[in-house]
């Protein structure tokens, strides 16, 4: 589980991604109130997202799960409220036992479900797609599903023997393609080729594969659809892709988009091929406050000039400013504190 052991506050991209998810949920309330929803996610030991949805949205029906007993024990210690139930389950078990788990928690009649499958293991992409499909098969209109998966091309390679000569880029892409095909062949877009095995290309391939899985769960002629709302990629180390969508009746789709004013939300993805990138360099407080004041009025080149430097944490400031303009409100400011 790469990244799982890095403390959350050292993963600024994930933090922004999560904040944007909350922003989206707040918008979702224009469609239907979330207070009676059940929130289900792995949560890891700190239950960070459970705390956030509880504090920000007032959701009290919380479910967390993990396959490690120790982590579940720690979740039980860290849970924000007593109505947060923590289970020792694999994600596949959680999905197949979902109805039973809800009634065990006395959440049998919720307003809806928000499920976040926050996967980490790149080798399990095949399982992850199939779990996503079987989860969709258990849900109904109004339910939200979010998945996060690894989208790092190099994660598709077997580790090389130490001392071996590095692979040529073309060889590497060939192997990555072969591996992804063997894992998720039936979901892969028909035009996928080794040339797609890049930092930009792979998230697109994976996103469309989830689109294919959604189609299997909700056929084109059916009454309901899984509508992607927001698809983002970001990298705290390895690149991740997170997809958020809603199950909705086909007839409600246009009304839903209009009510949430998704056309004006900068991170909307109503197509599987629309993927937003989040770039979050570590800024000092002085830099952040400077940018925040000017970001809505000045253009990027002027801001960079006034800063007097072009890169931060290996990220081009100008590239970053493009997306920062949309999410600056959620930029995490982390202070070290002694308690």
């Amino acid at each position, binding site marked *: 589980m790469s990244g799982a052991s890095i403390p959350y506050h050292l993963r600024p991209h994930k933090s922004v991604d999560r904040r944007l998810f909350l922003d989206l949920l707040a918008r979702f309330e224009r469609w239907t109130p979330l207070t009676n929803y059940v929130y289900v996610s792995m949560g890891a030991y700190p239950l960070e997202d459970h705390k956030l949805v509880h504090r920000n949205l007032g959701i009290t029906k919380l479910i967390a799960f993990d396959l490690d007993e120790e982590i579940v024990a720690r979740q039980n210690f860290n849970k924000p409220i007593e109505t947060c139930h923590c289970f020792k389950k694999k994600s*596949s078990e959680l999905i197949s036992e979902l109805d039973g788990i809800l009634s065990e928690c006395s959440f049998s009649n919720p307003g809806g479900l928000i499920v976040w499958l926050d996967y980490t293991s790149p080798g*399990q992409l*095949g*399982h992850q797609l*199939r*779990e996503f499909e079987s989860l969709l098969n258990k849900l109904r209109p109004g339910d939200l599903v979010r998945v996060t998966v690894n989208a790092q091309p190099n994660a598709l390679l077997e580790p090389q023997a130490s001392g071996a000569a590095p692979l040529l880029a073309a060889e590497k892409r060939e192997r990555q393609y072969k591996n992804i*095909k*063997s*894992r*998720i*062949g*039936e*979901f892969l*877009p*028909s*035009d996928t080729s080794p040339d797609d095995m890049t930092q930009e290309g792979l998230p697109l391939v994976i996103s*469309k594969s989830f*689109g*294919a899985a*959604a*189609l299997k769960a909700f056929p*084109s*002629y059916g009454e309901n659809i899984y509508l992607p709302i927001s698809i983002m990629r970001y990298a705290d180390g390895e690149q991740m892709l997170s997809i958020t969508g809603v199950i909705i009746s*086909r007839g409600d789709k246009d009304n839903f988009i209009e009510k949430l004013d998704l056309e004006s939300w900068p991170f909307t993805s109503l*197509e*599987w091929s629309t993927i937003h990138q989040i770039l979050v360099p570590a800024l000092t407080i002085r830099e952040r406050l400077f940018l925040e004041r000017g970001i809505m009025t000045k253009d990027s080149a002027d801001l960079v000039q006034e800063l007097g430097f072009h890169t931060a944490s290996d990220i081009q400031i100008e590239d970053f400013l493009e997306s920062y303009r949309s999410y600056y409100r959620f930029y995490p400011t982390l202070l070290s504190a002694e308690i």
Partner: protein
Amino acid sequence: MAITTEKIGSAVASPTKDFFVRMLTRDIELQDAILDLLDNCVDGIVRSGSKHGAALPYEGFKATISIATDHFIIEDNCGGIPIEVAKKYAFAIGRPPSISAAPSGATVGMYGIGMKRAIFKLGTDALVESRNDIGFAVEFTPDWMIDDKWDELPMYGLADQKLQERGTRIEIYELHEDVKLVFGNPSWIDDFRKTVSRHYSLIIAKGFSVSIGSPDEIAGGIPSIPAENFKLLQTAAGADDGKRIEPYVYTGKIGDVDVEIFAGLYRELLTEDEAEEEEDTRGHSDDAGWTVACNDRVVIWKDRSRLTGWGEATVPNYHGQFIAITGIVILRSDDPKKLPLTTTKRGIDAASNIYSEVKDLMRDTTKNLTSFTNKWKKFPQNLQDLYRASEYVDLPKLRAMAAELPMTVSRRIDGMKKYEPKYPEPVQEKTSVRVSFVAQKSDVMALAKSLFDDEKAKPGIVGEAAFNQALKAIKVPRK
């Protein structure tokens, strides 16, 4: 039987058009209906006399399918419909017996309903234009569709600049509501492309080109669909006994049908860990199973059910351990009625005599291959030795190989030759035995900590190390 009383009137006995259209389209899926239109393109090439046996007999022939929420267009350059054929039966439902008996070449169309059924399935307004000898256009109008009379359809001349390459163009408008929904979904269109890359894999490999997309994608020159290839693993001969992994091959004739069967492994067997995972949920995209093609058209794709002999007679049911086993059956005949084709061309006429003979051979092969994986299941750590110098053999190469292999004749089926290789067996099978048992997690962890200073060492490895230590202890004489 003769009635002698006076006739007093007549009773309507013809089908209503609405009933007929609904019955005809009910049991076919949309994708299969569109594939029927593609089949017509390919049959056009075959009828116009492409050479069987040439490496790329369909090169230069293409079909383009444009899909939008308000219309559907398929256009090909595959020879078009001769005017006499159009007048007599291309637009009739079913073929008159006189036509049906005539030899058609190795086509897949045989019932004479494909085009009409596809049009009815998609919408209520269609224009068919074609040029072989004399170009013509025929329109199905919404009025004709709802009218209960089976009036003949008027034919019109075709403007000279249209379809100059000789081919057919079918445009369909007034799409049904469910069809509109499906056509508006890019994921569905991509799924259809995948269906074509499978069911047309042999035809595309022979040079036929199919492009499918939205009008914009077609205008932008979307690349044609690649074939999903069939290939089998072959390894170098073992040092001592010459045994190796190589394809099973059967070729010959059953009645008027040419039969080719190739089977074997398409990937390495699962490792111990992978096998354990597969037991839990399916994690690998799996290409296992039997593919069957009739006159190059794939009608069964990677099937693992009784339809292809799995779980019948002594063959075990398919499960994850058999993930590497695959095979292809290629049936060919100049008289398509001899082939076990169904009207939807998805699945097979399992009751046909020819298929039941072929299935016996398929079952034998599957049985041999499952025994092979069963033997190795016990010794997964030695699997790597199996794949010395492994390479893939594709279909053209398999066919070339068949001519050189030391084939033997089949005792049961006259005219069939076969090559049934002996696969390597684990040497330890006679001297070794598998040990497995269940233990307390905490005990395994304690042992792992003591043996490897790593609580997370794999239980199998911990067990083996503990066993070896115990063994060493009794073998070393105590002082």
